[in-house]
């Protein structure tokens, strides 16, 4: 009896953590999104009983997000920004993780520290630092003009999409590199040696062995950065400020900012969560498959 409960008991703190910090708050957001509003204080009045839930706000949010709705453009823009940022993060992050895992040797620890180092400073502070660097007379323009990349200073902070995407990439890339590094570092070198022994070129060995075996790391890193990116609102606020570069998180922020319709913000959060849940399910399915394939490779 004692042994039967001992090992599962180790999971108890994690389960409590999950219940207290995820399931309960999520149910609270659900109660708000499907609840009502105090007509005097405009405070959300959650409805806890699912039988009494009011789906009107959800339906309103879905209408606004649909084609022709007032949020359709911002919804598409958010997806495009996140996808481009993710692609750039992979393009930049994968070689860094690959080099660190495979070729950094004794410098591996130092490189990892350097990757993590920016995370010691708050995200907001890092973004504000970029605001200074990206000013018309800032260092970025100075360097680009000195190297003749630009003939005149560029207004990076004038409300451009490229600056927002750049900031997203900068802000989130360390979170992609770390799981990627972990996945690449775990790959057994004998698999690569076997591929090379069987006549595979370097590129072919990478494409057929390393890349598939690092799929878990790619997916894990991608999930880790896309989830917060979808909810980001402060990055476009800080480095742009233009409505043409706002993201869906800005709308959630607007409706949670003390106005008369906090339920709209909560309902939008629920819709976003449902969308991200689909991505998560895809990730879980892929990871399950990848583990299966990795197991098969390992067995060879």
């Amino acid at each position, binding site marked *: 009896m004692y042994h039967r409960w001992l090992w599962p008991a180790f999971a108890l703190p994690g389960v409590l953590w999950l219940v207290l910090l995820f399931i309960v708050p999520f149910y609270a957001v659900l109660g708000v999104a499907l609840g009502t509003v105090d*007509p005097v204080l405009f405070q959300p*009045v959650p409805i806890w009983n699912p039988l009494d839930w009011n789906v*009107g706000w959800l339906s309103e949010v879905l209408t606004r997000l649909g084609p022709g709705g007032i949020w359709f453009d*911002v919804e598409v823009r958010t997806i495009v920004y996140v996808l481009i940022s993710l692609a750039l993060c992979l393009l930049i992050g994968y070689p860094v993780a690959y080099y660190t895992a495979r070729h950094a040797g004794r410098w591996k620890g130092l490189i990892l520290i350097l990757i993590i180092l920016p995370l010691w400073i708050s995200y907001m502070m890092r973004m504000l630092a970029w605001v200074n660097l990206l*000013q018309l007379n800032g260092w970025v323009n100075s360097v680009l003009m000195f190297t003749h990349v630009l003939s005149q200073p560029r*207004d990076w902070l004038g409300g451009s999409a490229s600056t927002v995407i750049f900031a997203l990439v900068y802000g989130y890339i360390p979170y992609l590199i770390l799981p990627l590094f972990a996945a690449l570092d775990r790959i057994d070198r004998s698999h690569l040696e076997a591929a090379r022994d069987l006549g595979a070129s370097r590129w072919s060995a990478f494409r057929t062995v390393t890349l598939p075996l690092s799929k878990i790391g790619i997916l894990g890193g991608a999930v880790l950065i896309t989830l917060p990116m979808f909810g980001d609102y402060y990055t476009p606020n800080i480095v742009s400020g233009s409505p043409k570069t706002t993201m869906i998180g800005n*709308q959630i922020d607007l409706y949670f900012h*003390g106005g008369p319709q906090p339920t709209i913000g909560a309902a939008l959060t629920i819709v976003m969560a449902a969308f991200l849940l689909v991505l998560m399910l895809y990730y879980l399915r892929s990871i399950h498959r990848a583990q299966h394939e990795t197991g098969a490779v390992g067995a060879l």
Partner: protein
Amino acid sequence: MTHHPKERANSLSRRGFLLRGAGAAAALYGAPGLLAACSNTTSVPAGAGGEQAGPGGLPLARPNRRVILPRWEDPIESGLKPETGGTFTVFNYPSYLYKKLLTEFGAKHDVAVQYTPFDNINSGLQRLASGAVTPDVMEITPDTLNIGVAGKLIKPLNLDYIPNLQKNIWPQLVDPFYDGESRYTVPYTCYATGIAWRADEIKEDIAAMDQPWDIFWESQAYSGKVALLSENRETIGMALLRKGITDINTEDPALVDRAVSDLKELYGICNIKVDDLQYQTVPEGSSWLHQAWSGDMIAGYIYYLPKGTPASALAYWKAPRGKVPVQNDCFAICSTTKKPVLSHLFLNYLLDNGIAYSNFVNFNGYQPPLNEIDPSTLVRKGVVPENLENSVLTDGDFGPSSLQYGTLTSRGQQLWEDGYSNFLAGGGS
């Protein structure tokens, strides 16, 4: 297109029922029993007035429609001694009151003064209602006053403790339209909404234009350097004023929709931005043309103008009286206070000539409505440069014909919020 609340799918919800109840409630001017009938904040009193009502069924005040709010409890008696010891908490916007003055008040009355900031007044009131904070006094605005009173979040005042109100403050704000007899509030700062710009970058003579608000629609040359305030009332209200519509409290969906459509034209014209950093970005030169409150330019001149940049680089325009939106912030005593007498004394302290003036020129930049402040004196003293003299307001700016953003009905607030959401979404123009 902005949705009219009536079109919403959730109109059959319990919420919709409550809101309809609020909309139908009577607008009873000074009806003393109104709140007494409310057993809690969600109750909406019934009435037969037929006029639109704000939160809690309280009447909507307008500059030409004075409202005396009902007292939900009696004020404290006169002649009581102030409480001492412990903590005295001021609930306000961040950095909106000179800390040195708070410390001096605390030392004088043997209390530790704590400053608790909020993001905005609505969220502050929500935190107060939830019990998350228990301040003694708080900043409040006329358009959120109904929430404070209907929610029984602020206490009625005994003006015997606040002689400085009558003695030092502009007559228009001693007995203001939004709080007749000053039953709940005293004024704190005042400001107008206009246009701030860098005179060394903007070529147009904005003040000389037939309709200066048009400058935003003619600012192609300044793309990326043009911004509006990040406030739904201010942005949509400005677009209404540009078209000559002076009812800046309209709840007509067609007018609000039209204003939002006009604002969306600005995406293509100047890649318009929205923020509330004009007090910093205009003096520093990262923004050249910005919708701005008058106090921003004074604060910007005092604190943010870089060395070597002359004051003449800053310019401000506001419309003439009757066409310019003006507002004032207030202070009130929270119902959570354990020091009601001291809270009254604090309000009186804020209205002291020396204290209010020091808060203005040494920290805040937003002028208090003091009788002794006049634009030419401030210019003579060097507090305000001559070219920004028009950013100083006077009592006459707050008359019955002034334009002021007032409380809207719940539906009106939704309409404006959704309109701003549409603008902020940056879609189609």
